């Protein structure tokens, strides 16, 4: 009997392996949300460049890179707590807090500037860590804990900058918001950016490099640590993660710290880009809400467990690219908010197609 049973587990096999699927198809299916976001981005950004008088040029790329960096960093920030199954409603406020801090610290001698930058990134991470402590040790739901701590961050930002102002090192500001060649020229690197070997990369906008650096040097390695993996595990099934002996508390602390770090980086860049600190409450909440929208458009589930920061960056790009088109096409100005709202609603509703296609309604609940 036993032999007969083990000899044939074919039906079970059929159900475990999707029929005839290669790993690539499996991957594609597991990342359907991201693919949709990429398609949207190609559509919106392609249209914009196609009709822009200087479309597909370095200038336009630089300008767009400056526009997207802060939001992209905030989208990355938001992703990490979302993967846990939480939300961080304080990312916009932390961005603003660090923005105000930077307007005090990032000026002076090169050493002072470097120290100031480190302090800003550290402050963002520290605030995120405090968020994490409230969530882990206070056992308050992330969404409400960060709603509250966001208000506190905003208050602190207002203390630092009761009104907009401050100064950021002008060279830094120029170097960070232009092409790599301008960066080299500003700091006298690579023969003022004229070195022959340097030319093939000279056109790359610095903000894009910064974004890639955060994505590839911070997020990608982090995702492959045990702590990073644990974040996914918690979002997928917290109880199971605990039972599996994973470092729950550490991962939660790390997630919020990382969120604070990315949000702080966003605030720092905003300061560098604008040379000021500005404790603008509506702007902070706009960024927070847009970061959530970016995460969703990127295909990360708000329930946690699946998705990633890179996908959220694509989501942020989609969000931005939608409004790029208003500068090209003649949409009556008072209809623009309506059009933007409708496109946003449509973009976030794309995931609904999956729900409508689901043949087993139980799959919808999770």
């Amino acid at each position, binding site marked *: 009997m036993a032999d007969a049973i083990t000899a044939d587990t074919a039906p079970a096999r059929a159900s475990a392996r999707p029929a005839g699927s290669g790993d690539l198809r499996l991957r594609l299916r597991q990342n359907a949300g991201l693919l949709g976001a990429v398609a949207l981005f190609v559509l919106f950004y392609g249209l914009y460049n196609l009709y822009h008088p200087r479309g597909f040029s370095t200038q336009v790329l630089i300008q767009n890179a400056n526009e997207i960096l802060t939001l992209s960093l905030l989208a990355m920030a938001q992703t990490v707590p979302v993967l846990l199954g939480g939300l961080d409603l304080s990312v916009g406020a932390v961005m603003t807090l660090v923005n105000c801090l930077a307007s005090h610290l990032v000026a002076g001698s090169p050493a002072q500037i470097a120290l100031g930058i480190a302090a800003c990134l550290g402050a963002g991470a520290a605030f995120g860590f405090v968020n994490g402590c409230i969530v882990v040790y206070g056992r308050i739901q992330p969404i409400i804990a960060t709603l*509250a701590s966001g208000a506190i961050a905003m208050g602190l930002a207002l203390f630092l900058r009761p009104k907009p102002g401050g100064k950021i090192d002008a060279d830094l500001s120029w170097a960070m918001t232009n092409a790599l060649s301008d960066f080299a020229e500003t700091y006298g690197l690579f023969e003022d950016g004229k070195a022959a070997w340097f030319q093939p990369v000279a056109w790359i906008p610095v903000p894009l490099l910064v974004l890639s650096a955060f994505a590839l040097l911070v997020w990608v390695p982090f995702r492959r640590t045990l702590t990073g993996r644990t974040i996914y595990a918690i979002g997928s099934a917290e109880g199971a993660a605990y039972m599996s002996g994973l470092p729950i508390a550490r991962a939660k602390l790390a997630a919020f710290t990382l969120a604070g770090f990315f949000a702080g980086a966003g605030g720092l860049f905003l300061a560098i880009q604008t040379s000021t600190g500005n404790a603008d409450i509506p702007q902070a909440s706009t960024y927070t809400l847009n970061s959530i929208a970016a995460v969703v458009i990127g295909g990360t589930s708000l329930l946690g467990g699946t998705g990633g920061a890179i996908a959220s960056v694509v989501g942020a790009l989609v969000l931005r690219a939608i409004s790029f088109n208003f500068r090209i096409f003649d949409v009556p100005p008072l209809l623009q908010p309506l*059009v933007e*709202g409708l496109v946003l609603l449509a973009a976030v509703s794309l995931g609904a197609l999956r729900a409508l296609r689901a043949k087993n309604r139980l799959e919808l609940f999770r």
Partner: protein
Amino acid sequence: MNALTVQIRPDTKPILIAAGFILVILGVGTIYTLATQGAATLLSPAYLIQQLQTGAFLGLVAAGMMLVILIGHIDLSVAWTLTAAAMTATAVGGPWAIPAGLGVGLAVGLLNGIGVAYLRVPSMIFTLGVNAVLRGLMVAQTGGFAPQTAATDAMRFIGAERVSGVPVALVVWVAVSLAIGVILTRTAFGRSLYAIGNREAAAYLSGIPTRRVTCLAFVLCSLFAALAGVMLAGYSTKAFQGMGDAYVLPAIAAVVIGGTHILGGRGRYMGTVVGVILIVLLNSVLSIMQMPEAGRQVIYGGVIIVMLLVYGRGERATS
């Protein structure tokens, strides 16, 4: 066991603590007014009634928000639902003003409900999109059609007037509150809200029409926001862009401070009422004390965190 220990249901504790905190706020405010004015103005009936009157608008929004939070969702579109209802009501004018305003609420609620319950887009993001669309509509309408914005007499009546000293707005709030209290505890719909909030799949497989219940919760939420908008327009004698902005986060905060679990499934309506009063008084006292915005924000956030810490830390995912 200590015989004197009074048994308090766990979901009553937040309500008592919040009520206690209200007394603290009044106390601090009174100390301030005594020191600066030499009078305990905050304890006068006139002041308290006025707070309840302005609190009624937030109270209505929070009541709707609570229904949605109970099923584990959230409605971020209340700000512009409120505004759109008010602006539509005043634009229509005449006897149809209030029905038109409520009609906007109904329509928005249905849209939200369909998006969340049938299309299963996360409510957080779908209502955010609906909010953007409503804002767009109102901008287009103001710019393109220059609608009339004066509140009708009926709106003035429910928003601003008093009947033998009692604000009508307060009466409306109390009536809505009683209705919700009964709905939540004594009707199948109310029970279904809790069931869905605890585990939607189980509720669905129990034969609860989860999609319809979810939809209805969103409709009620938008309707209450619309009612608040119509009344607020009456109170201000007019509707204006952005009149709802100040209501979203305070409504969520009031619900949570009242002990409702932000992820749904648990909470008593009484808590939301107490939470609303707490938020309204806190804002008022901070305004009276001329607290700068920075301090206000810090206190606001601090109060929420401290309250939730005092309520007792939530349990773990597994126990």
